[in-house]
């Protein structure tokens, strides 16, 4: 505990020193905050930022993400800099759920190195693990492509953010949505209703702008309302220990989470440009 206090104090001192850097050059020299080593900061990859920097990052990353939606790192930065309150809310919901509490203490990570792919492939069809693997193969994605959290100034909240990113693909499987534009927008609507993260809300609002009219119609009439309703009523998706539920039947899992099956079956083959 005292370690955190000392580190917190050092960080405060750094903040002051930054603005009076001319006087404090030698003092700054000693503070380890602005270094390359991944052990400085509260967790590996953490970068200390002042409130001004966070605001600038939020604006800059928002603009960059709008200009080029394929810049996933900018979407990630936007989420981190704007999601403080939503992350606290999510963390509290997880704490109040017994399974969520277990996740917060055990801190599992979803990586290719931690998944036993051959075992998952041998599971029966309709099981969660098998369907997840099918989703990864059909859409040519991997769970390792998630950016690390950098700008969240609390170690536990940073884990919640990381968990949210890693659960995103599992959510696709649970909702039965492919990774084309329409599927992503549907998942974003669900996430916005579930988590309240401003980045999801922004994606949910701006995503539809890139859809053609037939897909827009599908979104607004059936997919959208379904996603929103289920987002609101479903159990907190971050509180599920997915790694222990690969054998569980997908339909059972959906029922347990209070998620209805999708009204429209979208296949990954629908990957025409929108």
């Amino acid at each position, binding site marked *: 505990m005292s370690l955190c206090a000392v580190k917190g104090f050092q960080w405060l001192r750094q903040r002051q020193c930054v603005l009076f850097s001319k006087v404090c050059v030698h003092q700054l020299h000693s503070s380890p905050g602005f270094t390359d*080593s991944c052990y400085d900061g509260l967790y590996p990859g953490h970068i200390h930022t002042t409130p001004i920097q966070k605001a600038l990052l939020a604006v800059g990353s928002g603009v960059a993400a709008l200009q080029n939606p394929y810049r996933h790192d900018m979407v990630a930065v936007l989420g981190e800099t704007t999601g403080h309150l939503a992350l606290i809310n999510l963390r509290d919901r997880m704490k109040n759920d017994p399974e969520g509490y277990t996740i917060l203490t055990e801190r599992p990570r979803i990586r290719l190195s931690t998944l036993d792919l051959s075992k998952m492939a041998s599971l029966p069809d309709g099981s969660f693990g098998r369907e997840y693997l099918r989703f990864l193969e059909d859409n040519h994605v991997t769970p390792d492509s998630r950016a690390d959290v950098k700008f969240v100034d609390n170690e536990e909240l940073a884990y919640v953010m990381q968990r949210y990113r890693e659960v995103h693909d599992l959510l696709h499987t649970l909702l039965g949505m492919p990774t084309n534009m329409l599927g992503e927008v549907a998942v974003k609507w669900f996430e916005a209703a579930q988590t309240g993260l401003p980045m999801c809300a922004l994606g949910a609002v701006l995503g539809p702008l890139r859809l053609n009219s037939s897909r827009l119609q599908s979104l607004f009439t059936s997919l959208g309302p379904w996603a929103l309703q289920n987002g609101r009523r479903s159990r907190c998706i971050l509180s599920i220990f997915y790694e222990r539920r690969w054998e569980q039947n997908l339909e059972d899992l959906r029922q347990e989470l209070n998620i209805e099956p999708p009204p429209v079956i979208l296949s990954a083959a629908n990957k025409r440009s929108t």
Partner: protein
Amino acid sequence: MAASVRLLLRLSHRNINVAAAGGSARPGCCWGPTGPSSCRCFSDATGDRSTHFGFETVPETEKAKRVYKVFENVAQKYDVMNDAMSLGIHRVWKDMLLRAMHPQPGVRLLDVAGGTGDIAFRFLEYVQSQQERQKRRAARSTQTPSWQDISTNYSTEDEDGPQESKAVVCDINKEMLKVGKQKADSMGISAAGLSWVVGDAEELPFDDDQFDIYTIAFGIRNVTHIDQALQEALRVLKPGGRFMCLEFSKVTNPVLARLYDTYSFQMIPVLGEVIAGDWKSYQYLVESIRKFPDQEEFKGMIEDAGFYCVHYHNLTGGVVALHSGFKL
């Protein structure tokens, strides 16, 4: 005499700095792998020297590697970031360097840490326009020449080609040179007067007395041993050759200094993250500027290396300083 006294003072000053850094870095020893390396400050005597990498203390052997990594990462977005960070003013600084240089056709330039080629391109353009001006002047002065004169003029013109002026771009980082070469191709600059060489400023791959002008723009603060780089500069310059250095320096006006510091530390890493996706490299950049000696101290270092008539001009209120010296 004065130079040697100054050298003594500077050496002792540097030792005090390093020791102070080592002493104040000790609280950091307990957590993190930077601990052992910062403690190593005290083993100065055993030859295990350390230096600064931004505000971090690293072993000297490691600094070059870390700097290489930084520029490898930023090479692709280097020019875009320069424009964004300096709001385009870096172009003015480089133009002013060329104006001060005022190279004449036939001059050989070595641009060290020249990476993406900004100085070399400007040099070639300048020399070309000078050449054209000379030709125009020559043409004006010859009134109604005879056919004999015209034909002799044609034959000499071919020899006086732009091949005379050569610019050599030397950089330790292959990525930066690659970007520079691509730029040259896309700008359509003829490869005739331009060479791209991989080399270390502390140990240049050139013979003595080769170049008329040696420039290093925004590169010398990344060199581990600045005095060695200066000595190398002296070596490769011809007698009468000129050393010119553009580098970030200390802002003299206190109000401007506060604004500049705030902008540097708040804005620039954010720009690095948003544009180049690399916060840490640009954090290093603003920190390395603060660790570089100020105008007078650097002038002293240049004089100690053996240059004469060393002067400096402050640009943009001291944000950048242009140092110049001659080898006699």
